[in-house]
């Protein structure tokens, strides 16, 4: 009994220690990022390096505001990221569910094909894809941006792995009640996978939000530019302005961070619900 107690103590200490080190290693670069975004350029590369030294100010943020049409880019990115996320979330969940718990001809082959789509670098299919969108007359439209991303193998794969871990025979209750397959999916299965769906929502959103190359390739019009493309223009060819780049990074981080913090509450809710069912 006594050894168990000290064991617990040591375990507790170890946990705090490990997590503490991890926290530091993860947080420090962010701290640097945030502090740098408030520093004057000349203080950033001073030697010896000090985190809190020199003058602090909002100059980098003002610069961003002045130098790019920030709100336009923000708007485009929100439309692009939100529409893709919502549509893709629906299709991914449906397909993931079917691959996990339904039987249909060609299932295994199709699942392998889906997995296969994750193994192709975008650069390789980029040219044919652009030509396709161009021939469909969809360049420079939000629809043209949305369609190729309306489903995502990662999402399908992830949802499949969650649906498969739900207990066997859950469907039967619904079937006895005479509910259709879609009803079973929407009313029984989806609520049980809520934590996974919420995480996938965040993943999809942040993936689209940060994507530089895809929206840049599929549009040619300045009015369709997204935030990552706008922020990338602060990376000078010869001169790197760290302050401005970090300020831009902080600004683009904010919405996802808020969404994540909000979603964390949802996770807890999701757990509570599964607990009740079980």
């Amino acid at each position, binding site marked *: 009994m006594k050894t168990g107690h000290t064991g617990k103590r040591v375990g507790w200490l170890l946990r705090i220690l490990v997590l503490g080190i991890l926290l530091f290693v993860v947080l420090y670069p962010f701290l640097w990022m945030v502090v740098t975004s408030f520093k004057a*350029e*000349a203080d950033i*590369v*001073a*030697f010896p390096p000090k985190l809190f030294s020199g003058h602090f100010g909002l100059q980098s943020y003002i610069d961003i505001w002045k*130098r790019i049409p920030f709100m336009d880019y923000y708007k485009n990115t929100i*439309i692009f990221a*939100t*529409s893709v996320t*919502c*549509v893709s979330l*629906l299709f991914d969940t449906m397909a993931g569910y079917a691959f996990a718990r339904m039987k249909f001809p060609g299932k295994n082959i199709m699942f392998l094909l889906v997995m296969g789509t994750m193994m192709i670098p975008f*650069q390789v299919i*980029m*040219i044919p894809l*652009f*030509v396709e969108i*161009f021939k469909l007359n969809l*360049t*420079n*439209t*939000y*629809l*043209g941006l*949305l369609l190729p991303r309306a489903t995502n193998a990662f999402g399908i794969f992830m949802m499949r792995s969650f649906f498969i871990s739900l207990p066997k025979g859950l469907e039967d209750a619904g079937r006895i009640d005479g509910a259709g397959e879609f009803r079973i999916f929407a009313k029984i299965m989806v609520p049980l996978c809520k934590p996974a769906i919420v995480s996938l929502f965040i993943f999809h959103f942040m993936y689209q939000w940060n994507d*530089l*190359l895809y929206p*840049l*390739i599929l549009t*040619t*019009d*300045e*009015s*369709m*530019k997204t935030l990552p*493309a706008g922020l*990338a*223009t*602060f*990376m*000078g*060819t*010869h*001169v*790197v*302005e760290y302050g401005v780049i970090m300020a831009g990074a902080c600004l683009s981080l904010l919405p996802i961070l808020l969404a994540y913090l909000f979603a964390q509450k949802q996770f807890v809710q999701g757990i509570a619900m599964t607990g009740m069912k079980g």
Partner: protein
Amino acid sequence: MKRKILAVVLAAAMVLPMATHVCAEESAEKTVITFWNGFTGSDKETLEALVNEYNETNDKNIEVEMTIMPWDSLYQKLATVLPVGEGPDILAMATERIGTYAEPGAFVPIDDVYEAGIVDESVIPETLRENLKYDGTYYGVPMNFATLLLYYNKTIFEEAGLDPEAPPTTWEELEQYAQQIVDNTDKYGFDMAVKDTTPMWCIMLWGNGGDIIKDGKAVFNSPENVETITRWAENIRDKKFGPEVLTGGEIDKLFESQKLGMYFCGPWATNGFTDAGIDYGVAQAPAGPQEQITQANGVGMYLTSSSKQKEAVYDFFGWWNSKDTQVKWSLGTGFPPARTDIADDERLAENLYIAEFAKSANESKMYLQQLTNFAEVDTQAIVPAFEKILLENADVQETLDEANAVIESLIQ
């Protein structure tokens, strides 16, 4: 609820593009030409202001619609749009890439710009002029032009007991000063970047009468080059003048944090260093045993095969290369003007350094021009050769022989 959101999103996705189409039709009587380039960072502001000025003042109702993106994104985007004829009307990029795009016909010959006198070829610095051509035909007009000079930190010079107003003028002095800085201070003396920038080493190669490609043949392993590279590799690696292999960004940072006494750099750095409060000077590249020479970079503007607005494009080309625009561009970016007849324009006196950079325009050469695969020669042969010598202490002759064979195979 979910379906409702979805419906709204889908509807928005359908309607919004239509809205933008309506806007485009309204300004139909204007001639709109598109212009893509990679002038990111601080140059972007000056460029945008100038393009705006052109849009407001030109009397032909031409509107230039400019898109700026990082150079590597630009090259990828071009690979998708050029084949289907959806490229911009005007492209800007470094002159060493002309061959890559001119050979397959993505750029269009523009000898007539010069024949019609829209751009005056006689005022273009000679090095730049020759490299706006490919196979003897003009493909570009100047966008900007820069030479590299020796930047030196006056504070470090004083600390090392050197005269801060007397920068080195020869290789021997450069070596002596760098040694003195290394001996007397805890700073680095002199260094040259190897990658992700204009390779500063070629200043040394040319200074000793060497070259990389001459008359269509690879001459990277010439005895002069072996001598030059052995000498400077020893200086940097063994006498610890500076860190071995640096990128352009790293070496700028090193100088900006006042840890490096001297290095070669273009005019783009002056504004940042001045703002950072560094006491520095710029001087012509120290003369080598054979020649006093430096490196030049040029960016040209090109008419693409996608364009159907040749006249409007030429008008913009002419305006860009006018005296007035060149002075403004020069003042905004710190680059010397791309024409030789305005060096004494009094407005340029505002920036102390422009005149110094402009001075070396005709004692300069450009790196790896007139090739169809510039990027391959640079990244597959030349950069690895320097890395091998500096990082792995490889035998200079052997490494250069090997690299020379690679270059030879790439330019065939």
